[in-house]
């Protein structure tokens, strides 16, 4: 009985890839290579190493930006959740950023800061931080009163109550915010690369498109999506490891 989820996962994966393969063979568009063609192209760029060079360029600002956004975002969110004054002052900015299409700012940022590491990190940060700050702030502010009172009753110091009670209690929502922030960060990084800078994985995508090498383009896209999925899965595992008691079953976002 335990095999069932695995069988179904394999089944659904093969369904999708099979559909891809078949539609590639139908002459709908010469720009739609089959699954097999794209995977071969993927092996080619793995073998000649160009994919790794590209990812060095992409991943540096991406991971740096995510790391900074997580630390700063949770820190600011914590402050927002604990202080009513700070919340009033700072939340509206993040609320506006959250609702608005931040992607529109990316061309501007590239104009202002050029095409180097700093600007890419900045792009990732402005895409990722709002949701992390808002989620953290909300969770902290809505920590059940009873459990904070318990901390007081058992003589917890302010620091204890924040780090041993409020933050763990908020962790499911904080992690949900982190997942959303990470996806937004990925979007920002790729957008920056597709739009202007001839670097990283975005460059492989744009270049191969411009010379009509569609299998490589699809291969590169496949690889970045795969990477994003693995990274998010990894985040989930970290959450489960740190906060085993939070996993009460299926929760989506």
């Amino acid at each position, binding site marked *: 009985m335990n095999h069932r989820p695995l069988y179904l996962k394999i089944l659904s994966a093969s369904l999708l890839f099979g559909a891809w393969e078949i539609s590639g063979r139908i002459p709908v568009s010469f720009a739609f290579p089959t699954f097999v063609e794209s995977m071969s192209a993927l092996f080619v760029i793995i073998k000649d190493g160009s994919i790794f060079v590209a990812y060095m360029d992409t991943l540096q600002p991406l991971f740096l930006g995510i790391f900074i956004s997580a630390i700063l975002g949770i820190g600011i969110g914590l402050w927002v959740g604990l202080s009513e004054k700070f919340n009033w002052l700072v939340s509206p900015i993040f609320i506006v950023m959250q609702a608005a299409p931040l992607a529109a700012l990316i061309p501007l940022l590239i104009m202002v800061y050029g095409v180097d590491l700093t600007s890419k990190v900045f792009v990732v940060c402005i895409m990722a931080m709002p949701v992390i700050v808002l989620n953290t702030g909300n969770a902290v502010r809505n920590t059940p009163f009873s459990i904070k009172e*318990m901390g007081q*009753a058992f003589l917890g110091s302010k620091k204890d109550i924040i780090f041993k009670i409020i933050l763990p209690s908020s962790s499911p929502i904080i992690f949900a915010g982190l997942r959303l922030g990470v996806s937004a960060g990925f979007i920002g990084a790729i957008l920056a690369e597709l739009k202007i800078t001839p670097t990283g994985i975005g460059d492989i995508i744009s270049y191969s498109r411009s010379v009509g090498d569609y299998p490589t383009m699809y291969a590169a896209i496949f690889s970045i999506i795969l990477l994003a999925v693995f990274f998010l899965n990894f985040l989930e595992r970290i959450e489960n490891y740190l906060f085993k008691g939070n996993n009460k079953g299926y929760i989506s976002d």
Partner: protein
Amino acid sequence: MNDSITNNIAVSVKNVSKNYGETEALKDMSLDFPKGQLTSLLGPSGCGKTTLLKIIAGLLPATSGEVIVNGVKVTTPGPDRAFVFQDFALMPWASVIRNVAFGLELRGVNKTERESIAHKYIGDVGLKGFEHSYPHELSGGMRQRVGLARALAVNADVLLMDEPFSAVDEQTRRKFQEDLLNLVKVEKKTFIFVTHSIEEAVYVSDQIAILLPRPSRVSEIIKPSGFKHKDADSIRKDSEYLDIVDRIWKSLRTYVQ
């Protein structure tokens, strides 16, 4: 302060008032809680019993008056008092043993020591084997036992219980009441117990303080004594027990909306 009084009285509430803006939750309340006994605060909703309990615990500040615990005036939580919460207040992300040891953890006791203390009390409340379970895997009754073990583990003189059995089912509740009787005999602590159930109060208490609302005041103090030596099952049939329950019900009846 009379020395002989401080020897017998664990907690003394003197002229405590509590206002919330315009509302007077407690007005000039005075009450003594004898050492080593279980005193109930019994009354209908709105009579301020939980407010009084939290003031004694130091979780709420009194607007005026003072609370004296073992001869010392108190205004904040302290190692001499431990609290058991109505909704258990367990940390859902932590295992049972971590929850029980939490009071000790906050006091800086090292891990080995506090876990061994926690083990003892987990066994005492009947949860042996569940040390590494999580709250969501336990029933309501079991969760409250964790809360109780946590309060016992810090070894405070005074145990404050805020309607601790109201969130569990009836059968579990009865069992808890019987267990509480044993606990009071064994632990030699002072228990202050808030409840709105008359039967519960008369069953477990050495002394019942009946509180009435608007304005909140102690209307009378009853000391059931005749059936204390009887065993758990017989008490509920004892005629003094039934009389006291009836008496209290008649006097409280007019306050039920």
